[in-house]
C-alpha cells in the first residue's frame, strides 16, 4: 500500500540494480562470464570477417592504437579518465538505488558550464582551471538535480527523465555554440564546419605531465583516480556512505532509522551528475578534444561510462581497470577506424563484451529460479481492506 510511494526513486531500476550485485554463485558466474566473453569475441571476429576486415589485423590495430607504444598509452589514459569519473558517479547513485542513465547529457552540460567560465571569466593563473572544473561539476550536478526535483515533486521516473534530459542537453549545447552565447568568433552564420566555440585559453587547460614523445599523463587522470578512491572509501566506510547503502538496499528500513530517503536519493543523483559534469570538464580541458565546446564533445563518454559502472557492478575501485579496458577499446578503435574499418563495428564489439560481463549474474539467477531451487520465496502479504471499503465501494 504505502510502500509504493516510499520506493525512491524507482522500484524498477532498484530491482534491476539488485540483479547486478555480486551474487553468491561466484564461481558459476565467473565460468559463465568466461564462456560469454569467448562467444562475444568469436561473434566479433565473425562480424569483422563478414565486413571484409581481417580479425587479426583489426586486433593488432587496436593494440597498436592503445598499448603498443607511449602514444597509444597516452591516448588510452586520456580516454580512461572521463570514463572513470562517469562510472564513479553512476556507482554512487546506484548504491542509493537510483538509476541515472543521463550521463551523456550531464557530460555535455558540464562542458557547457566549463566552457562558459573558461571563455567568459578572466581569472588569474591556476584559479582558472579550478574554476572551469568546478563549473563543469556544478553544471552536471544541476542538470541531474532537475531530474531529482522532477521525481520529488511530480513523481517523474528518474530513468526516463535523465534519459530524455540528455536530448535536451544536446539541443542546448548545439544552440549555445551556434548562437552569440559561445559561437566561435571567426565563424560566420554561414559556417560550413560544425558549430563550435573558441578554444579555451591555455590557463584553463589541465596540465600534462611528461614530455612528447614519451608517455604523457594528464592531470585529469589524477582527478579521476582520486575520485574513485574517495568514492570507494566514502561508500564503504563513512557514515554517509552507510546511509546511502541502506537507502539502496532497503529504503523503508532506512526511513525507519531516520534517513531522509528522498533527500538522500535526490542528492546522490545530483552528485552523480556532478561527476559526469566533471568528466565533461576533463574532455573540454584535456588534449582528448580540440579544447572547444562542440555538440559532439561528449562522444558517447556518458554512455560508455555507464557501461563501465555496469560491468564493475557499481564498485568504484573495480571501475578503474574496467574503465582502462574500455579506454583501450576507444583509443584502439579510433586507430582501427583510421585503417578503414567502420567505427560502428568497434561499438558492436564493445556492446557484445558488455553483455558478456553484465549478463551472467542474471542468467545464473534465472537458471536457479527455473530449477525451483528457491522454494521459499515469501509471497507478499495480501492487502486486506477494512469494512470501510465496503461502504466506499
Amino acid at each position: 500500500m504505502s510502500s509504493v510511494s516510499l520506493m525512491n526513486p524507482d522500484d524498477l531500476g532498484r530491482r534491476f540494480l539488485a540483479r547486478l550485485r555480486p551474487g553468491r554463485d561466484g564461481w558459476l558466474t565467473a565460468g559463465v562470464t568466461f564462456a560469454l566473453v569467448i562467444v562475444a569475441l568469436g561473434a566479433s571476429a565473425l562480424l569483422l570477417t563478414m565486413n571484409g576486415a581481417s580479425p587479426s589485423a583489426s586486433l593488432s590495430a587496436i593494440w597498436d592504437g592503445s598499448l603498443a607504444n607511449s602514444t597509444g598509452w597516452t591516448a588510452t589514459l586520456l580516454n580512461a579518465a572521463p570514463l572513470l569519473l562517469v562510472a564513479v558517479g553512476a556507482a554512487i547513485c546506484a548504491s542509493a538505488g537510483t538509476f541515472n542513465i543521463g550521463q551523456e547529457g550531464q557530460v555535455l552540460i558540464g562542458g557547457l558550464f566549463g566552457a562558459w567560465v573558461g571563455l567568459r571569466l578572466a581569472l588569474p593563473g591556476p584559479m582558472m582551471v579550478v574554476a572551469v572544473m568546478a563549473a563543469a561539476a556544478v553544471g552536471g550536478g544541476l542538470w541531474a538535480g532537475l531530474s531529482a526535483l522532477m521525481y520529488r515533486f511530480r513523481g517523474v521516473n528518474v530513468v526516463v527523465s535523465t534519459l530524455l534530459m540528455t536530448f535536451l542537453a544536446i539541443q542546448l549545447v548545439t544552440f549555445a555554440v551556434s548562437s552569440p552565447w559561445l559561437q566561435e568568433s571567426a565563424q560566420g552564420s554561414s559556417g560550413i564546419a560544425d558549430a563550435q566555440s573558441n578554444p579555451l585559453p591555455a590557463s584553463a587547460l589541465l596540465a600534462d605531465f611528461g614530455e612528447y614523445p614519451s608517455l604523457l599523463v594528464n592531470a585529469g587522470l589524477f582527478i579521476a583516480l582520486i575520485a574513485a578512491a574517495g568514492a570507494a572509501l566514502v561508500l564503504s566506510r563513512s557514515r554517509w556512505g552507510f546511509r546511502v547503502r541502506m537507502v539502496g538496499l532497503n529504503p523503508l528500513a532506512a526511513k525507519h532509522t531516520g534517513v531522509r530517503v528522498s533527500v538522500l536519493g535526490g542528492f546522490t543523483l545530483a552528485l552523480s551528475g556532478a561527476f559526469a559534469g566533471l568528466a565533461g570538464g576533463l574532455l573540454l580541458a584535456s588534449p582528448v578534444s580540440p579544447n572547444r565546446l562542440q555538440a559532439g564533445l561528449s562522444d558517447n563518454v556518458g554512455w560508455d561510462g555507464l557501461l563501465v559502472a555496469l560491468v564493475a557492478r557499481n564498485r568504484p575501485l573495480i571501475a578503474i581497470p574496467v574503465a582502462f579496458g574500455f579506454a583501450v577499446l576507444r583509443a584502439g578503435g579510433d586507430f582501427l577506424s583510421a585503417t578503414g574499418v567502420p567505427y560502428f563495428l568497434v561499438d558492436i564489439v564493445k556492446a557484445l563484451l558488455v553483455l558478456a560481463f553484465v549478463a551472467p549474474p542474471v542468467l545464473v539467477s534465472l537458471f536457479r529460479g527455473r530449477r525451483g531451487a528457491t522454494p521459499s520465496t515469501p509471497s507478499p502479504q495480501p492487502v486486506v481492506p477494512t469494512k470501510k471499503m465496503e461502504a466506499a465501494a
Partner: protein
Amino acid sequence: MTPTTSAVPILELRSITKSYGSVTACDAVDLRVDAGEIHGLLGENGAGKSSLMKVLLGLVRRDAGTVLVRGEEVALDSPQEAAELGIGMVHQHFSLINALTVWENVALGDTGKVNKQAICAGIAEVSARYGLPIDPEARVDALSAGERQRVEVVKCLRRNPQILILDEPTSVLTQAESQELFAVLGRVVQEEGRAVILISHKLAEIAQATDRVTVLRKGRVAFRAVTAETTPQLLARQMVGREVSLGDEGAALGLLPVQRAGADGGEARERQQPVLRLAGLTVVQGGVRVLDDIDLTVGAGEIVALYGVEGNGQAMLGDVLSGLVVPTDGTIEVAGSRVDVTRPGVLSKAGLGIVPEDRHHSGVVLDMSVAENLTMKSLNEVSGRFLVRRRAMLAQARRLADEFNIVTPSLDAPVRSLSGGNQQRVVLARELSGHTRVLVAAQPTHGLDVGAIEDMYARLRRAAAEGIGVLLISTELEEVMALATWIAVISSGQITGALPVSDATPERLGMLVGGEAA
C-alpha cells in the same frame, strides 16, 4: 492394485521423500486419508507440511515414494494432473485479484469460453449447498477478510475437488467465522464422501475440527491418532518432541493458557505512568479510513495487547509507529512529550522501538551485515566525525549479539544468512538498545518455531519488567491472553473495546473483534 472398495482410502501416501539440496523436507512420510474425514496435519514451521502438500498438488516432484488415489497409483507430475484427480487447495495467503469481481476470480484458470451466466449460476449453487453466501458481482477489494476466504473456498469447491487441502485457513477469520467454516466442511465431507486435509499449527483448531490427525516433526511422521482419543497436550508433545507446559509453550502452540495466579494481581491493576499515548490517530488512504480515531495508552512496565483479526488496520498502525507513514490526524506522545511525526526518525529518537510485522519490509536490511543491522539506529555512537569506527561498531554488535543470543556465523555475515528467529532477535536487540521507553511488537512470533516463540515471550516480559511499555499487536488470542495485562481490540480500524486481561474471555474478545460491543 486391489479393486476399489469402501475400505480403500481416498488418498494414500507411501514413503514420500523430498529433499532440497542437503535439507530433507519430507523423509519417508506415510499419510492415509479416508473418504468422509477431516484429517489434521499438524507440525511446526519447517516440519515438512508445505512440502508434502506441494508434492500432492504436483507443484514439486517427489524424490521417492508412491501416491495412491482411491487405490490407484498416480504419477502427479503436474498441477493439471492433480486438478484432474480432484485435488484442490485453498492457500494460506489469498490468491485473489483485488480489482476483479468475485465471479471473475472464480473463473480464473478455467479453460474454454467464459460464460458469465453459467459461472454465476455455479457460484450460486455452491454457495447455497455449502452455506457460503457470496455476491458474485462484488469486487474482491470491497470484501472483508472473512468473505475473501469464503471466495477462495467457493472457487476451490466449484471445481468439485474430492480432496480439499486447507492451509492455515483461519489466520484471517474471527472465531465465529472459523467455527462456521468447519461446521460446513464437516457436513459436506460426510455427506458426499470427500476428504479434507487441514493444515494448522493451532492445536485447539485441530482438536475441534478434525477426525484424525497426523503430526509431522522434522520431516517425519511423529504421531498419528484418532483426534477424539488424544489430548491437545499429547499432540503438543508430539509436535515439539518434548514435554510442553500449559503456560507460554501452550500459548505458543495455540492453547489458551491457564489463568496465571498472582503475578498480575488478577484484578484490573492501576494504570501506570503512560509512556506511549495515541490520541485520535487517523490515517485516510484512498478515501478509506484505514485507522479511525485510535486512542490507546501504554503505561511503563505494562504489556498492552492490540488484538484483532488480520487486515483491520494493524499493519498501518505498525507503519505509522515505524515512522513510514505520516498520520492524517491525531497525536503520538512518547514518554510524556508529543512527537512531531513529520520528521523522519523522531519516534525512535524519542525512545520508541518497534519490531515490525514483516521484518524484511522495514526491520532489517538483508544484504547488510549483522553488525551493521544491529547498529544502524545508533550509527552516531559508533562513528567519528566522518567515518564509521569499525571497531566500535563490532564491539557494540558483539555486546548485543551476546545479550540476545543471536546465532550467527560472524558479525560480518549478511542478515540474509540467518534463520528467521535470529533475524527477529537482531531486530529486537537493535530496537531495545539505547534508551527505549516503549517497545511495539507487531506479530513478533509470526513464522517462528516454538523455541523462538518462547524466547520472544520471555524477552517481552523482561522488557516490561525493566519498565519499558510494551504494545503487542497480535492476531493470536492465546498469545494475547498469555502476555498482556490489558487487551484492546481493533476492528475495521477502530478500537472497539479495551479491558484488563482478568475480565477478558474468548467470547467477549470474539464479540469485540466482530465489531460488537461486549
